[in-house]
């Protein structure tokens, strides 16, 4: 059974204080690993797809990296508007289309 564990559950940062969120996964092969951002009262917003170990993707202050066992979402010099819950999900080739989500990390960035 595919499993995704995200840590920490909650993270509080000061504006400008860089940090990383972790997503550990167990999957039978990896079709893709996905990062989403979710604001309160809204649906998750797609951020990145990573397909293979060593791959990196960047968007503004966010950079996602992937190894064979985990993914990191690095946040550089965060701003208050980066406050949200960040969700990680994986898909196995045998379950094409079916993503398993982690419980998320809730990030709060204080000005």
């Amino acid at each position, binding site marked *: 059974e595919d499993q995704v564990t995200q840590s920490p559950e909650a993270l509080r940062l000061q504006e400008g204080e860089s940090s990383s969120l972790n997503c550990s996964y167990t999957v039978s092969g990896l079709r893709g690993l996905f990062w989403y951002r979710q604001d309160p009262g809204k*649906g998750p917003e797609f951020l990145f797809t990573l397909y293979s170990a060593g791959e990196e993707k960047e968007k503004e202050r966010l950079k996602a990296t992937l190894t064979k066992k985990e993914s990191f979402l690095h946040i550089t010099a965060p701003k208050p508007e980066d406050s949200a819950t960040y969700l990680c999900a994986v898909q196995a080739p045998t379950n094409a*289309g079916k993503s398993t989500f982690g419980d998320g990390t809730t990030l709060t960035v204080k000005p």
Partner: protein
Amino acid sequence: DARVTQTPRHKVTEMGQEVTMRCQPILGHNTVFWYRQTMMQGLELLAYFRNRAPLDDSGMPKDRFSAEMPDATLATLKIQPSEPRDSAVYFCASGPGPEAFFGQGTRLTVV
């Protein structure tokens, strides 16, 4: 700006009543997902379709839930009869590939 549209946004109903949630996926996306989100269980995949054909509905309680795609512009999720434990936010998402683009959700409360 293409987006997934869900109606209604909020629904309060009495136990035993039928509930129908509707979704208009993004034009051109051939995969449509229904997810349920609760504090306790996080995001759970209920069902998904590819090219309007149901691929997996193993996440749904079969006796009370049904999901259909009458045409490429409409997906529906029905609960009959509804129960208090069905209270949750229901998300529809669509995608051209493995990543999902989510709607704003339907917040269902069954009293």
